[in-house]
């Protein structure tokens, strides 16, 4: 396996590198958390990195001809190709370095995709990429919970009941999106047991995200991070609340912050405090009612939503992998675990 770069954990805000590798030139929306994901991601990874980005907001809004924000080498890949782009880039580098056609050096390879490119269309290629233990690569799914670049259409990662242009509430049907959000990170972790690192993240917790990127890039082999990105345009709220909504999604228990390092699960941030009983989960209503996409919800919809969130904490939250709140029996039913 190729060697990895020396990317130590950042111990505090003051230690965060000052260099920016994602700079001016992008034209993302005001309050775009995905743009922050890009900035923090490459800040943590550093200059000796190749980034490949699949079609989506972070392609179309970021890289306009003649005004790229990327200081590192960057290349577009097709909507469903984040996994293949990472594999191809890493394979090309690996073959050329091994055969003496390129100077030996650990180069970070990061491929990003949105929820459309990752959770929907790119799932099979990402899964394939995560099987290649011989390549060091990181796939980051920036999940703003809709196809936000193409007009806010529902994806497999859009929350239940959300109003999108493909799932508008109508006179007869109030909830057109009857699918519960896919559980992407656990799906990757469970399905690819040799992976050394899987994490969830949120740019509202910037230092945490920086360090998760560094752990992923130094773990060795393919790794995966799933970020939840509040999106003012797609979720219908004032752009100034992006950070706050990111925090609320975690404080209500809807989004859970964790890392799975070599198969071992560790909660972190507010999610850890909630699991330990130090903090109480806020009612999910506080999160839902802040966003126009849930404005059509009837009280029973909010109740249903809350029950689903309770269920993921009280019965399971990573099906097949981890029991819910610590202390409970293994949900998989294995006695000798």
């Amino acid at each position: 396996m190729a060697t990895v770069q020396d990317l130590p954990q950042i111990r505090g805000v003051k230690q965060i590198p000052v260099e920016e590798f994602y700079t001016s030139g992008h034209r993302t929306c005001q309050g775009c958390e995905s743009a922050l994901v890009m900035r923090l991601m490459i800040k943590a990874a550093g200059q000796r990195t190749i980034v490949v980005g699949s079609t989506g907001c972070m392609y179309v809004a970021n890289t306009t001809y003649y005004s790229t924000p990327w200081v590192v080498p960057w290349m577009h890949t097709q909507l469903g190709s984040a996994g293949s782009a990472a594999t191809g880039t890493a394979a090309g580098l690996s073959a050329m370095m091994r055969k003496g056609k390129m100077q030996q050096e650990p180069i970070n390879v990061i491929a990003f995709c949105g929820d459309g490119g990752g959770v929907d269309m790119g799932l099979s290629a990402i899964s394939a990429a995560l099987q290649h233990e011989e390549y060091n690569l990181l796939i980051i799914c920036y999940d703003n919970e809709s196809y936000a670049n193409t007009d806010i259409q529902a994806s497999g990662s859009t929350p239940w009941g959300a109003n999108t242009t493909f799932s508008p509430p109508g006179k007869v049907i109030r909830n057109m999106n009857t699918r519960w959000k896919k559980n992407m990170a656990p799906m990757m972790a469970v399905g690819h047991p040799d992976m050394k690192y899987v994490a969830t993240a949120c740019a509202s917790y910037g230092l945490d995200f920086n360090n998760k990127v560094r752990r992923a890039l130094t773990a060795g082999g393919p790794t995966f991070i799933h970020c939840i990105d509040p999106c003012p345009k797609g979720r219908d709220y004032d752009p100034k609340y992006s950070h706050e909504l990111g925090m609320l999604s975690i404080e209500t228990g809807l989004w859970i912050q964790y890392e799975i390092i070599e198969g071992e699960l560790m909660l972190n941030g507010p999610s850890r405090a909630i699991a330990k009983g130090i903090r109480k989960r806020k009612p999910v209503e506080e999160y839902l009612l802040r966003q126009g996409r849930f404005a059509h919800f009837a009280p029973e919809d909010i109740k249903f939503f809350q029950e689903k969130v309770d269920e993921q904490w009280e019965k399971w939250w990573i099906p097949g992998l981890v029991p819910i709140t610590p202390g409970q029996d293994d949900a998989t039913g294995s006695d000798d675990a």
Partner: protein
Amino acid sequence: MATVQTQLYQQPKEELISGSEAIGIACALADVDVITAYPIRPYDTVMQYVSRLKADGAFDFDYIIAESEHSQFEIVKHASAVGARTFTGSSGVGWFYAFEAITVTAGLRLPVVAMGGNRALDDPGAFGVEHNDAMAVRDLGWHLYWVSTAQEALDMALIAWKVAEDPRVLLPFALSCDGSFLTHSQAIVQVPSQDQVNSFLPAYQRGTLQLHPDNPITVAPQVNEDWLMEIRKQTDEAMRRTPAVIKEVYEEFKREFGRGDPSPFIEEYMCEDAEIILVGMGTLAMPTRVAVRRMREAGKKVGFLRVKFFRPFATEEIQQALKGAKGVAVIDRDYSYGSPSYGGVLFQELRSAMYPMEERPVMLNFIAGLGGREVMVRDIDEMVETTQKALDTGKIDQETTWVAVRE
């Protein structure tokens, strides 16, 4: 110069191999860096071959068994962008599953070399050869070459990397090989030595277009109406430059290896003074040459023109080859539903190429050999008879005829 990492072929030698194996050997001789495989018949025999070379330690490359054809082509696309020499391939509907990736490879000016083991498109399923799969890339900026023998497969693969990777060109190259008739049929092939190949084929140098931290470029940003036409035109200019590069490389190849036709674009068989010229691509050449030779023996002035490069289309050479003929019988192993005269794709292209000529031959189209049905010598005879009848009567009953098909 390619790294001498395989000692497979220290000396030139003769081998009895299939067209797929010939391309597999070319991959080793060209020191390809990244190859992606996905199973579909008949092209995948090439991947079975290179995987054995890898397993035996005879050929060092990064070998990725992709989870779909789309990923196959995407992976080599990105490997090519960082400067690796690449090879992949597919057949039939697999080629179409990869089509998005195939499209962008040309748009990105990445010199991927791909083998199309021609196969009929589903549905209904059929394993046999048909040219509609590979032909679909004709408008995208790919070189598209139809191979007719295993020797030509090996030779053209080496030429393909050299042409595609030339900085004046930088366009991908598809080698179309008829399913079964070429992919699975063995023939004696002259395999060159590694030294010969090294002196012919330089290393792929992507230069200032290489994606690397030392060269932090942004590749394929969004352009919209501001720039798309200019970028399309750049690709067009590359495609217009490639014929001269192909000629140059072909001459070098002939000097180095001592074999090849007069033209890289077309093969003329008994076309001089021919009144009727048959035109076709790929392995159709074999029965057609036999039929032409027999007819010549019987005193009939018949010739055969094999179109080798479908893209770039050698318009002038084809015009010159056909201009003396009274009748032209175009054999299509493909079909275009609802097209002008309800004909095949090669026919449409040839008729279009001949339109500016002052004296145009009578042109008829024959749809033959679809789904791998064998094209017999008697079928060729019938095409010539039909064309002769049109010439004699001055009347065309139908422009397109389906040959040897149940009514």
